[in-house]
């Protein structure tokens, strides 16, 4: 009994320690108080911004941009990934490009995208989608390529037609890896949306809110917006993990 209670309290130790450390840094005067507000003040400020509704517009804008970018990325990345994965030769011929751009920080491409799309909402979504497409496509292609050969052979010996082997077996086999790509993809999309909101003349979004607060030295606003951004990223991850656990119930078990 006491063991299981202790066990359940374990995840809270980290946050409590951060809270104490944050306080300690301030009371010991390691950091000037005008650069870092106390944790309780920051959290209260954040709660107030929710209570008054002040943050909703920015939060919603960022969420929408991330979702659009993600949907575009998934819509292009998954079919392309399946296509590439089912032909090893095709994959090998574009492998370098995928790996190169996957390794290029997408933020480095922001100026290029500004040239193409201008300083618009579409620009932010386009670059976030571009960044997410590569990781989704890559994971999806690997999922298809690494499908268990035994399962494909099993279907073949049953006399299943090629189209159904593809649809029933290959696609299902690739799903666990594809989901890893989708989960990573949505995180990347959020990162790029926030960066784009900061630096591509934006009038809304959490990124804009953070940099705006910094410019006018409203540090309570800045820290509370950073916390909200973190919470958003964390929630997206949790949502995807829950979907994954239910849809891809066999992942890691077979």
């Amino acid at each position, binding site marked *: 009994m006491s063991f299981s209670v202790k066990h359940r309290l374990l995840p809270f130790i980290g946050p409590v320690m951060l809270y104490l450390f944050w306080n300690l840094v301030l009371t010991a005067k390691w950091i000037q108080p005008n650069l870092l507000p106390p944790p309780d003040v920051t959290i209260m400020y954040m709660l107030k911004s929710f209570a008054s509704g002040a943050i909703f517009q920015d939060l919603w804008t960022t969420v929408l941009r991330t979702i659009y970018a993600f949907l575009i990325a998934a819509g292009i990345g998954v079919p392309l990934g399946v296509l590439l994965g089912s032909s090893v030769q095709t994959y090998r011929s574009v492998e370098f490009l995928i790996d190169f751009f996957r390794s290029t920080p997408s933020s480095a491409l922001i100026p290029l995208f500004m040239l193409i799309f201008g300083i618009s909402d579409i620009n932010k979504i386009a670059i976030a989608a571009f960044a997410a497409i590569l990781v989704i496509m890559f994971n999806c292609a690997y999922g298809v390529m690494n499908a*268990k050969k*035994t*399962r494909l*052979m*099993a279907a*073949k*010996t*049953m*006399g*299943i*037609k090629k189209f*159904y082997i593809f649809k*029933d*077996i290959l696609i*299902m086999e690739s*799903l666990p890896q594809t989901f890893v790509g989708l989960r990573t993809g949505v995180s990347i999309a959020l990162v790029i949306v926030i960066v784009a909101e900061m630096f591509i003349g934006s009038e809304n979004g959490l990124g804009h809110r953070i940099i705006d607060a910094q410019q006018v030295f409203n540090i309570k606003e800045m820290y509370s917006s950073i916390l909200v951004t973190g919470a958003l990223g964390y929630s997206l991850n949790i949502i995807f993990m829950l979907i994954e656990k239910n849809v*891809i*119930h*066999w992942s890691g*078990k*077979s």
Partner: protein
Amino acid sequence: MNTLQIPRNHVSIRGLYKSFATTPLYEDFNLNILKGKIVSIFGPNGCGKSTLINMISGITEIDAGEILFDGKTLKQTTIGYVFQNYRDALFPWMSSWENIAYPLRRANLSEEKVKSRVEELFELFDIRFNLKLYPYELSGGQQQTVSIMRALAPKPEVLFLDEPFSALDFEMTLFIREKLQEVNLVSGITMMIVSHDLEDAVFLADQILLLTRRPTRIAALLDFDLAKPRLAEAISDPQFIAMKSQALEIFQREMRAGNGM
């Protein structure tokens, strides 16, 4: 009952050639498998036991030669294949029931017929676990049972089994041996079993196919007519022991011959 009929050819292999990376594995290989018989394939490591049934079942392509089933090609023939690694062979996104039903549904059988066929197999295999469970929720032996049921579902003419017992405990081995024997006696389905265990190889066999080292030839095709159904105790029957030592002798002779190369 079967012994009264004159057994006829079922699987015939003519002039089979297969090489891997220019090293020939099979050269002008010929073999006849009789209808309704259980043939165990036994031989030294790397002699291509699994490759042989993989070529017959169409998993591995052959370089040249002809393999016919009662005069029909593979495409015209329903076969079943049981893999050594049941974990990788079953479809984990389907329940065990759906796994067994899958080949039937894809053969466009009505849902009623699918149900009654799965029910039939359920009775035949005396299943005591819930088929609604996913394969990864079952024990190894239960998973292999499901994969055998799936292979048998479309009523194949020939059932291929690649070391089906190697990952099972002894209790499960006894159970599956018994069931395979029953299926063979009831339905007269031809079976080819690859085995690395001589006792397993002899136990179910009507014929034991002993292979040489590569390039692979037939060392011997032994007939074993100990009465069926064979019970677990059959392993201490003098006839069983005699057959085992005869097979062992040939096996060892081939090993020695191979070492001289």
